[in-house]
């Protein structure tokens, strides 16, 4: 099994994980599960960055992964705080009940 095939398999795996995340965002109604699907999509993109970094032999893509991880951590903290704030007012986690910004 050559490294070329492994890199290509990693890219296909990254694609499959991303699609699972997209389908999950459409399918689930619990806002926390939807949020976890977004995290899954970020992970899938990280995997493709690492695979491309391996293929090209440079480290710039891995630095990008580092920044994606940082942004994901910040996003999780702020997003979960927003979910807690809305849950305090609406007393539900159903995504259909979150229509504060709809006119």
């Amino acid at each position: 099994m050559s490294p070329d095939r492994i890199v290509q398999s990693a890219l296909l795996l990254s694609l499959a994980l991303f699609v699972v995340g997209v389908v999950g965002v459409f399918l689930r109604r619990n806002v926390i599960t939807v949020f976890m699907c977004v995290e899954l999509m970020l992970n899938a993109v990280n995997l493709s960055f690492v695979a491309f970094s391996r293929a090209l032999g440079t480290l710039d893509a891995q630095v990008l992964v580092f920044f994606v991880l940082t942004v994901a951590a910040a996003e999780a903290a702020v997003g979960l705080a927003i979910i807690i704030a809305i849950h305090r007012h609406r007393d539900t986690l159903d995504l259909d009940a979150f229509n504060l910004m709809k006119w």
Partner: protein
Amino acid sequence: MELFEAILFYVFAGLSLLSAVVMVAQRNPLYSAFALLVTICSLSAIFGLLGSPFIAALQIVVYAGAIMVLFLFVLMLLRVGREEPEPGRQRVLKTVAIGLGALLLAQLGAVIAGIRPQVARGFDASTRSMARVLFSPQYVYVFEATSILIVGALVGAVVLARKEP
């Protein structure tokens, strides 16, 4: 040795895909969180097999150690129940979602199946060489900017989740 690594790669790839599907199919958010944890850990193993030990460790520390613990805290804090199925609307949405997913998979899969990556020789992604790139003049200002981002997110999270007086 190469065969062993290939077997490990496919085992972890299958595990991560399986647990991702379980996460999406599961109605109980707590079980979804644990399935995502399995996905994250097997992706960390895959990063290691692709020759990136620093990213593999970071994946465990940041994702499994920080982000997923935050998710589990919120899940247990808010006492979420199972998601109850909603017959009519849910079936239409499910069909559309899976159809769109299959379309995306087919389109991007055709692109990826067409490329033939030529893997470079002598790949070195040790922590030392990662640090050389990260703290080079090209990226050091971006690195400093992320610390401002983290502080902003921290303050924002505290302000948003605070109980109103």
